[in-house]
C-alpha cells in the first residue's frame, strides 16, 4: 500500500462554502475512505474559527494542521484568495503525532521548541523517527530559537522542515490552524515515523556583494557591531542613507539586500532579513547571527532567484533518489513573491516542470523557512532561513 494524497482548493468568497468545496474536491481526488491527516492552507481572510470548525467536523476526529499565507500555491496556480485542503491516507507502518504550543513569545522560543518536541515525542516514543514538519507564527523575532529548542529534544541533526505563516504583507497577524481552532503566537508540528521518505531542497539565489565583514559583537538575533562599528553603519555606507531614511525604506532593503552569513562547505550563504534598526545602531534580524561570523551584503535578481528554484527542485529529486514523489510541500519566502512581482508564477512552472505535471503540489508563502542545510540523509543540521524556496518531497518506500 502506498501513501495517497488529495488536494482541494476553493476561491469562493463565502468562506464556509469554500471549505466545503475544497474538502469535496480533496476527497474526490483522494479516492479513499480513510483519512488520517489534513493540512489546511488559506489566505488570511479565511482565518475564522467557524471555518476551521467546519473543516474539522466535516472530516471527523482527525488531526488538522496548517497556516495562513500571502497566497496559496497548488498545481493549478497561485491564489491570493483561497483555501486549500490536503488529505492524507497513510499506508501501514507509517505513524505520526501532531502537537501545538501556545503563547510562544511569553515562554521564549527555545522553551517553546522544547515543549513542542516533548509533546510530539509523547505519542511516538519507540518507533524510529524520521522527520518533523513545523509551522509557526510568522511575526516572531527570534525564529532560530524555536529550532534550537526542538533540536535540544529531537537531536542536533534531526531533520526539520517548515515555515513561518504569513499574512497579506501587512505584517499584522498570522494564524496557525490546529484541529478545531485558529491560533496566533503559536507553533505546531507533525512528527513522522515509519516507511516514508522525505527529501528537501532549499535555495535562495542571492549572491554576495562587496567585501567580507566580521560580526564583532552579537547576541542571538541582535547584531550590535560589524567590524568594530555599529552594525547599521554597513547599510548606511552602502545605501548612502541616514538611519531615518533606512528605516523608511527598510522593508525593501531587507528583502532585496539581506545579510548573508558565510557557512564553510555550503554553496549558498545563510540569509537574514533585518526586522528593525535600533537606536544604538544595532540591527535586529529574524534569525540568529553568531558572533565571529563572516558576513556579506547580498543581492538577488529575478534570474538568480528562478535559477535557485530550479536547483531546489533538483535537490529534492536527488535526495529522494528519483523515487516517485507523492506530494511536494513548498515553503516559498514572501520576499521572493515581492522580488519576482508579476513573474511569481514562473516558480510554480519550474516546480511543475521539474517534478512532473501530475505530482501534487501544495505550498504557502512564508516569513521564514526551516530546513536542513544539506540533504536530509546527510544528517545535515536544520537552520532558520530567509528568502529561500524550501521544497519538501514525500515519497513511498
Amino acid at each position, binding site marked *: 500500500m502506498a501513501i495517497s494524497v488529495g488536494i482541494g482548493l476553493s476561491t469562493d468568497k463565502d468562506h464556509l462554502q469554500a471549505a466545503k468545496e475544497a474538502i469535496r474536491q480533496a476527497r474526490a481526488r483522494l479516492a479513499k475512505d480513510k483519512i488520517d491527516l489534513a493540512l489546511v492552507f488559506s489566505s488570511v481572510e479565511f482565518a475564522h474559527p467557524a471555518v476551521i470548525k467546519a473543516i474539522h467536523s466535516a472530516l471527523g476526529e482527525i488531526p488538522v494542521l496548517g497556516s495562513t499565507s500571502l497566497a496559496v500555491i497548488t498545481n493549478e496556480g497561485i491564489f491570493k484568495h483561497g483555501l486549500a485542503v490536503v488529505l492524507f491516507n497513510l499506508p501501514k507502518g507509517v505513524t505520526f503525532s501532531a502537537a501545538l504550543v501556545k503563547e510562544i513569545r511569553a515562554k521564549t522560543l527555545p522553551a517553546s521548541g522544547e515543549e513542542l518536541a516533548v509533546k510530539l515525542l509523547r505519542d511516538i516514543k519507540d518507533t524510529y523517527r524520521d522527520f518533523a514538519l513545523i509551522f509557526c507564527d510568522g511575526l516572531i523575532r527570534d525564529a532560530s530559537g524555536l529550532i534550537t529548542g526542538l533540536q535540544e529534544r529531537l537531536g542536533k541533526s534531526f531533520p526539520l522542515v517548515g515555515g513561518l505563516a504569513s499574512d497579506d504583507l501587512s505584517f499584522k497577524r498570522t494564524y496557525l490552524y490546529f484541529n478545531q481552532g485558529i491560533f496566533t503566537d503559536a507553533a505546531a508540528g507533525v512528527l513522522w515515523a515509519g516507511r516514508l521518505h522525505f527529501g528537501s531542497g532549499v535555495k535562495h539565489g542571492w549572491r554576495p556583494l*562587496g567585501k567580507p565583514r566580521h560580526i564583532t559583537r552579537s547576541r542571538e538575533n541582535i547584531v550590535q557591531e560589524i567590524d568594530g562599528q555599529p552594525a547599521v553603519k554597513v547599510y548606511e555606507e552602502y*545605501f548612502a542613507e541616514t538611519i531615518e531614511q533606512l528605516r523608511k*525604506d527598510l522593508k525593501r*532593503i531587507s528583502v532585496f539586500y539581506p545579510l548573508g552569513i558565510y557557512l564553510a562547505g555550503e554553496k549558498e550563504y545563510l540569509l537574514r532579513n533585518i526586522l528593525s534598526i535600533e537606536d544604538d545602531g544595532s540591527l535586529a534580524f529574524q534569525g540568529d547571527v553568531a558572533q565571529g561570523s563572516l558576513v556579506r551584503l547580498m*543581492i538577488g535578481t529575478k534570474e538568480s532567484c528562478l535559477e535557485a528554484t530550479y536547483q531546489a527542485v533538483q535537490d529534492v529529486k536527488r535526495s529522494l533518489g528519483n523515487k516517485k514523489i507523492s506530494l511536494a510541500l513548498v515553503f516559498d519566502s514572501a520576499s521572493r513573491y515581492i522580488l519576482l*512581482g508579476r513573474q511569481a508564477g514562473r516558480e510554480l512552472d519550474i516546480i511543475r516542470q521539474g517534478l512532473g505535471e501530475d505530482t501534487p503540489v501544495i505550498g504557502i508563502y512564508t516569513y521564514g523557512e526551516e530546513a536542513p542545510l544539506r540533504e536530509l540523509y546527510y544528517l545535515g543540521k536544520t537552520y532558520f532561513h530567509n528568502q529561500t524556496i524550501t521544497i519538501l518531497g514525500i515519497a513511498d518506500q
Partner: protein
Amino acid sequence: MPELKFLMEYVINIGGLIAVATVVGLSMVVATKMQAIKKLQSDIADLKKSLDEMDEQAKLVVRTDIELNKTQEELDKKIGGLYALQRFSRVISTALEEEQIFRRMDSNHLEDLGFEKACALLYSEGQKTFSLKLTFGFEAEQIHGVKSFIDGHLNFFLDLIRREKTLSSISASIDTPAKDRLTHVFGVHSFIISPILPKEGDKGLLFVGTQNPDAFITEGEEEVITILANQLGQALENARLFEKTWRQHQDLEKKVEERTRELTAALEEVKKISQRKTDFISSVSHELRTPLTSIKGYASILLAGKLGQLPKDVYERLDKINRHSDELAHMVNDLLDISRIEAGRMTMKFEEQNLNHIVAAATDLLSVQAKEKQIELSTGLPAGANAVFADKSQIERVFINIIANAVKFTPPKGKIKIISHKTDNMVQVDITDTGCGIPQEAQELIFEEFYRVDNPINQEVKGTGLGLALVRHIIEAHKGKIWVKSKVGQGSTFSFTLPIERAAL
C-alpha cells in the same frame, strides 16, 4: 699558568668570533625576512586597496540596483493597473442592469490596482442621500461608520460630484476639512475618490483605499481610478438606457396583449351576432317559404285560366306577382342555403366528379341566353377526364352563378371562356369574360351577402346580391378559394379551386 691563560684567551677569541659571525648571520636573516614582510605588507595593502575599491563599486551597484528595483516596481504596478482596468471594463461594460454592474466588480481586480478597500456611492436626488452600492474590505461596523460620516459631510461629497474632481490623499490639501477624519473613518492610509458621472440619473462616487502604510498614491494611480470611475458612469448610463428601452418594450407588449384581448372579445361578439343573424335568416326564410308557395300556387292557377279568363290588365299584374314570387323564392332558397352552409348544416355529398360533365351541363343551360346576346361561350379544359372531388349539384350552382353573371355583364358579341389547370392537389378553374369589369375597391366585397356593384347594368337588371356569396360559401365548404381579377371596361376573370382527392378536404 700562561697556557691556561692563552687557552682561555683563545677560547674567548674563538667564541667572540663565533658570536660575531652569528650576529652577522642573524642580522642578515632578519634583513631578508624584513624585506619579505615588507613585500607581504605591501601586497596586503594592495589587496586591501582593491578590496576597498571593489566595495566602493559594490556600493554603486547596490544604489543603482535599488533605483532599478523601485522603477521596476512602479512599472509593474502600472502594468498591473492597466490589466486590472481592462478586466474591469470588460465585466462592467457588458452589464445590462445597474445592480449587475456593481455585483460584477471583483475585489481581486481591485487588489491588482493596489487597493483592498473600496466602496461605490450613488446620490439619490429624490431622497437627498447617498446609498452604498458596493463595499469591499470593510467590516460591518466600519460600513455603518462610513455611512454616517458621509451623511454628516453631505456637502463635501456632493461638491466632489459637482466639481467633477478626483480627490486623493496626496492631492487633498492638509486643510481639506474631512481628510484626517476620512482616513480614520474609512480605516485607510491612502485613498482616491473619483466621481461617477452618468449623463442621466443619479450620480455618485467611487472610493478606493489601502491600509498599507508603504503604498504611496501616484498620479498614475489617480488617473487609473478616474478612468475606472468614468467607465462606471458610462456603464450606468448604458444600463439605464437599456432598462428604459426594455421597460418601453414591456409596456408595448402589454398594450399589444390588451388590444389582442379586446379584439378577441370583439370577434367573439361578432361571431355570436353572425350566428344569430344566420339563425334569424334561416327561420325567417322558412317562415317565408310557406306563404310564398301558396301565393305562387294561386297565381299559377289564376294565370293558367283555370278559374276563368282574366282581363288583360289583371293578367299582366298577376304575371308580375308570379315572376316576383319566383324571384323571392329564389332569394329565400339562396339565403337558406347560405345559412345552412354557415351553420354547417348543409350536407355535401362529396364524390369524385368529372369536371368536364359539370361544365358541359352548366354551359348547356346558359347557351340560350348567351346566344341571345351573341356571346361566344367556349371551354378550354385539358383533354381527358378532369377529376375533382366535390358535391355535383353545388358545384353546378357555382358554375351557373358565375357564368350567368358573366352573360349578364358582358355586352353583346362578347366572349366568355372557361379553362382549368392543375395546381398541386387542386384544380383551378378560370372563367373569363369581356364584360364591364369590377372596380378595384369592389373586388373583395362582391363575395359578401347583399353587396351589389354600383353600375348601370345592375341598376337595370335585378339581382339579389346573394349569388356570389353563396358561391363563396360552397367553394369554402370544399376547402377551396375564390377570387376575382378585373379591370373596368376590359372584363373579369373569376377563379376558384377545387380538390382533386378526398385527402385535401
